[in-house]
C-alpha cells in the first residue's frame, strides 16, 4: 500500500487496542495477588484458585454449563446446518419472510427473548431446569449457525455432489461423503459460536434456569454482585484461558479441514 500512515493515527490505534485489553490483563494479574481486599500487590499466590476448587457450587455450575453448552451446540448445529442447506440450494415460497424470521432472533434483545421464553414456560407449566436452559439456548443459536454455515455454502461448488451422484451415490451418501466434509469449516465455526454464546449467556439463562439448576455465568454474576475476594479474578482467568484454547483448537481444526479440501 502506498501512503504511510500518520504517526498520531498509529498511536491512537495502539491506545484503543490497549484499552480493549488492559482491563483483562489487570484482572488476570490480580488473580495471583495475595492481598484479599486491596489492589496493592503483596505477594504471589495460587490461593484463590485453590479456593475455587473447594467450592461445590462452582463445580456443579461448571457441570451444568458443559451439559447445556454441549447439547445446545449439537442441536443448534444440526438444525442450523439444515436450514442453511435449504436456503442455499432450494427455492421455496415465503423465502423472504423466512429469512426475516431467521434474522429476528439475532437482533432481538436478550432480555426480550428471556422474558418471552419464561412466559411460555410458565404458561404451559414446564418445570425450569437445565433442559429449559438448553431449549432457550438452541432457539437463539440456530440463526447464528445458519448464517455462518450459509456463508461457507455460498462459496461451494454444487457440481461436486452432482458428480458423486452420477458416479452412483444417492443423495444421502453424497451428503455425508461430499457436502459435510466440504462444509466442515463452516459447521465448526457455527459450533464454536453456539458453544461460546451458550457458555457465556447470563441474561436469558437467568430467566429460564429456575432455582434448582445453575450454570457458571449465574454463579459468577452472584459473586460479582456480592463483590467478594479475588476468587472472581481467578475464575475469570480460567474462563479467559479456556476461551483462548478453544479458539486456538478450532482454528487448527478448520485449517486442517481447509487443507484437506485442496
Amino acid at each position, binding site marked *: 500500500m502506498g501512503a504511510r500512515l500518520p504517526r498520531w493515527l498509529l498511536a*491512537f490505534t495502539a491506545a484503543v*487496542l490497549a484499552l*480493549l485489553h488492559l482491563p483483562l490483563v489487570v484482572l488476570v494479574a490480580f488473580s495471583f495477588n495475595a492481598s484479599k481486599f486491596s489492589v496493592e500487590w503483596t505477594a504471589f499466590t495460587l490461593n484463590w484458585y485453590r479456593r475455587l476448587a473447594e467450592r461445590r457450587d462452582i463445580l456443579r455450575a461448571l457441570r451444568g454449563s458443559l451439559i447445556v453448552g454441549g447439547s445446545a451446540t449439537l442441536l443448534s448445529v444440526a438444525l442450523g446446518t439444515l436450514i442453511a442447506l435449504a436456503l442455499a440450494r432450494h*427455492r421455496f415460497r415465503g423465502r423472504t419472510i423466512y429469512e426475516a424470521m431467521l434474522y429476528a*432472533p439475532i437482533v*432481538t434483545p436478550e432480555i426480550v427473548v428471556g422474558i*418471552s421464553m419464561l412466559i411460555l414456560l410458565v404458561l404451559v407449566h414446564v418445570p425450569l431446569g437445565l433442559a429449559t436452559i438448553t431449549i432457550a439456548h438452541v432457539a437463539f443459536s440456530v440463526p447464528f449457525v445458519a448464517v455462518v454455515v450459509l456463508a461457507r455454502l455460498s462459496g461451494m461448488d454444487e457440481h461436486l455432489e452432482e458428480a458423486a451422484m452420477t458416479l452412483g451415490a444417492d443423495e444421502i451418501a453424497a451428503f455425508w461423503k461430499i457436502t459435510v466434509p466440504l462444509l466442515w469449516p463452516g459447521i465448526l465455526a457455527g459450533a464454536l459460536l453456539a458453544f461460546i454464546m451458550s457458555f457465556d449467556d447470563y441474561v436469558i439463562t437467568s430467566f429460564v434456569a429456575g432455582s434448582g439448576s445453575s450454570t457458571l455465568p449465574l454463579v459468577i454474576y452472584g459473586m460479582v454482585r456480592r*463483590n467478594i475476594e479475588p476468587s472472581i479474578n481467578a475464575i475469570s482467568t480460567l474462563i479467559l484461558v479456556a476461551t483462548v484454547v478453544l479458539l486456538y483448537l478450532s482454528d487448527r481444526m478448520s485449517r486442517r479441514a481447509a487443507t484437506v479440501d485442496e
Partner: protein
Amino acid sequence: MSTRRRRLLGWLERHPEAQAWALLGPGTIWMVVFFVIPVLIMCAYSLMPRGTYGGVEVGFTLEAYQRFFNPVYLIILERTFVAALLCTALCVLLGYPVAYVIARSGRWKNVLLFLVVLPFWTSFLVRTFALIFLMRDTGLINSWLLKLGLVREPITMLYTSFAVLTGLVYGFLPFMILPIYASLEKLDPALLEAAEILGAKPAARFRRITLPLSRPGLVAGCLLVFIPALGSFLTSDLLGGAKELLIGNLVQNQFTTARNWPFGSAASTVVMVLVLGAVLIYLRVRDRETVGVI
C-alpha cells in the same frame, strides 16, 4: 438400498418444495415454538390485566401502555436512547481510525484483527467485571490516583452514567470496527492515487473518497452497536446505580421483584418495536445507497 429409502428419495426428487421444507422443518418448528410464539404471547400479555401474584388475568386493557407512556417511565426510555446514541457516537470516534489503520496495515493486518476480535469472544460478564475491578472506589485506578497524590479522596466512577457508557462502549466497540474495516478493505487504492495526482490534499481525499466509500460499513457498524445498546441489561445492571436504570432493567425488574407481568411485557414490546424500527431504517438506507452507487 432399501426400497422405502429409494421411494422416499424418488418422491422428494419430484417435489423440490417438499425437499426444502424437509430441511427447514425441524429448525423452523423449534424457532416458531420457542421464539415466535413466546414473543407473540408476550405482546398479548402486555394488553391484559395484571394478576395478583404475577402472571395475568383474562381480559383486555391498555393500562400497561398508559402507565409506560407517562413521564416517570419515559425518562428511562429517553435515558436508554441517549445512552445508545452516545455509545454509538463514541464507538464511531474510537473505532473508525482503528478500522482505517487495520485496513492499511499490510502484514500486521491479521494480528490487529485478532486483537479486535479476541474481546468479542471473551465472556461479557468477565469483561464487565474487569471494568468494576478498575473503576470501583477501592479499585486500581483510584488507588493509583491516590498514590500519585492526584486526588485526596477516591473519585466515584462505578454506579454512575459514566460507568454505564464506558461499559457499553467497551462491550460493543468490536462491532463497529469490523464492518468499517470490511468496507475500507475493499476500497481501491488507485482511487486515492488518482485523487492525489489530481492535487487533492489528504483531508480532501479522506472526505471525498474514503469516507463516502466506507459508508456502508459505517452504517452497518452503527446498527450493530445501537441495537444491543438499546436492549442492554447486564451493563447497566452491574455498572449503573439505581439512577442509571435503562429500559432493559425496567423489564427485568417487572418480572422479578415488581411482579407486574403486563407492564414488563409492554416495556419489552416497546424495546422490540424500537429495535425493529432501527433495522428497517437501516435496510432503507442500505438499499438507497446500493442504488445510488450503481
